[in-house]
């Protein structure tokens, strides 16, 4: 029961199951809809969900420590707004805007982490307040949406990174992949990453083992803030506009992605790869919906729910079955 391979397997069964189900889902889509089975459809998954992926990666850090960050959607919106505002109204260059936006996001995250830690307020409310604040700031900039015509942005939006087979990726997608890779290394191969797991496993123990609990806790929120801001930048490329109502409810998508990926909301257990898979699941569902193309508004929702239901239940049942 404690032999290495067994333990390894135990750890990875959820991931395997998720992957298999994912492939199955893609298969079903391919036989169902013409034009579904194409490399580009897969790549579009990445292109269309680049920002979600980046945000979910940040969320993974927070959730692994047993926390949660509701502010991500709002921070994304704020980032698009600030970018658009600076670029359009003040004609800042992209190279100045992006770093600033990232700094703002990171700062917000850091601040929330600091409050969560020093005053031991539940992350849920602190980040909820952060969410209100970020959205509020959007509106104080402008309630209208600001569209971006700046060439450097449009370039980022419309550049295509050609891949073999006539397929292509967007720069944003590439960035997202890099971020995920970096996060993977940090989580699984650095001290900080392991401290994150330890903190999630048992804060008290982490404390007594002399781990830098404060630093770790605050940093994960800063990371999440950074990722949200970066996600915001990517979304700005994607939409070429800043708007206070962008990415409403994104926090739920991100959390869902992370948890579907097999990370425990109670912290301490989960994989970054899982998060990537989780994002893929949500994206695939959305793709199927849009290929379906005959669903009325409410059936859209019901079907999304149903697909999610089937997926989750299968995932759980199969995993549990393997376990015993």
């Amino acid at each position, binding site marked *: 029961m404690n032999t290495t391979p067994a333990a390894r397997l135990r750890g990875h069964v959820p991931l395997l199951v998720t992957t298999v189900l994912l492939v199955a889902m893609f298969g079903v889509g391919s036989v169902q809809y013409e034009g579904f089975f194409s490399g580009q459809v897969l790549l579009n998954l990445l292109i269309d969900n680049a920002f979600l992926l980046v945000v979910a990666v940040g969320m993974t850090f927070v959730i692994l420590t047993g926390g949660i960050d509701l502010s991500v959607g709002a921070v994304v919106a704020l980032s698009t707004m600030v970018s658009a505002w600076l670029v359009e109204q003040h004609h800042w260059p992209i190279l100045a805007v992006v770093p600033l936006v990232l700094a703002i996001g990171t700062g917000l995250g850091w601040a929330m982490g600091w409050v969560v830690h020093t005053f031991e307020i*539940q992350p849920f409310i602190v980040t909820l307040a952060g969410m209100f604040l970020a959205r509020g700031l959007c509106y104080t900039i402008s309630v209208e949406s600001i569209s971006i015509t700046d060439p450097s942005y449009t370039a980022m939006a419309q550049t295509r990174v050609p891949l073999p087979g006539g397929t292509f990726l967007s720069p944003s997608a590439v960035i997202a992949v890099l971020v995920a890779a970096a996060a993977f290394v940090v989580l699984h191969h650095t001290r900080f990453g392991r401290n994150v797991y330890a903190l999630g496993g048992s804060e008290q123990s982490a404390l007594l083992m002399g781990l830098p609990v404060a630093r770790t806790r605050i940093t994960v929120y800063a990371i999440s803030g950074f990722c949200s801001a970066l996600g915001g930048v990517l979304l700005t490329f994607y939409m070429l506009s800043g708007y206070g109502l962008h990415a409403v409810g994104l926090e739920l998508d991100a959390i869902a992605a992370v948890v579907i990926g097999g990370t425990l909301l109670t912290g301490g257990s989960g994989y970054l790869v899982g998060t990537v898979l989780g994002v893929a699941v949500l994206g695939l569902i959305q793709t199927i919906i849009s290929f379906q193309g005959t669903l009325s508004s409410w059936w859209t929702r019901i079907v999304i729910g149903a697909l999610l239901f089937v997926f989750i239940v299968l995932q759980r049942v199969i995993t549990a079955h393997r376990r015993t």
Partner: protein
Amino acid sequence: MTKHRLFWPAAVLVAMLLANLLFTPDFFAVHTKEGHLYGSLIDILHFGAPLVLVSLGMTLVIATGGIDLSVGSTVAIAGALACLHISEAADPGSVSTVLTAVALALAVALVLGTVNGLLVSRIGVQPIVATLILMVAGRGVAQLITDGQIITVTSDPYRLIGGGYWLTVPFSVLLAAAAVTLAVLLTRSTALGLLLESVGGNPVASRLVGIRAHRLTTLVYVASAVCAAVAGLMISSNVSAADGNNAGLWIELDAILAVVIGGTSLNGGRFSIGGTVLGALVIQTLSTTVYTIGIPPETTLVFKAAVVITVCLIQSPRFRAKLARRRTTAHGGRQPEPASADLKVGA
């Protein structure tokens, strides 16, 4: 006094009410109009009632260490079903029609709650995803029922539930009060409360003392759904219309916020229904405040953020401790912070 669990939530509520008094001098004025009580305080109770109900259910769920995102959708579904039934009934005005409508809504809520409960307890899906499913799909179902339109009903008995008055008091308030009382009785004068707190506090140990955790867990999700359904009836009845698209939108966030402000930890374990009620009222007062003192919509959120964070700070013992120390040792040799362990680490 300040030791008491409910002191700080209560203090916050009072403070906010007083703040209102500054802007609208007759804020506390309550007089009777059209044979019923009339005034801002009444409004807060009246519009707060649904939130109180939803938060009530949410409290129980959270006590077991879970969370229920689907309440918003349940609110919508319940309202939609009831209104649909009434609008299609031969005589919308008759009590029997309304009663069947209500029964219908509650029955569906039972089903939805059970599904959530079983997903969590039996299949072992994490609460947040389990209920997310219904949150997404449920909204669709509600729209399906209303056909995406707003069903308007004219039925006095139905109107009573959320919009009517009984002995000059808003009926919904009485309803909510009854629900709260019931919940308190159920949890505190039976062993339910203890068992819930135990399950939330240490699931493994709870299993090993032979608590039927599965059953309890399912139960609380059902309770939550039923509360949400009743709230849904109130909301739709208050405007005599069912809006599958917007009814109860984001109410889950408000509810969770209310629970937390009420001093219940999202990690499960100890819960305080009284605190939740206060929390819900705080939130309702907050939005009323926004309207009455006329905060421009584009800055409303910033204002809310400020209030929420202040409320939490005031409630945080460590914040108060720090403040106290600031005051005592103004700028003397700073003695070591109470290592956060002091509060967290008990053998």
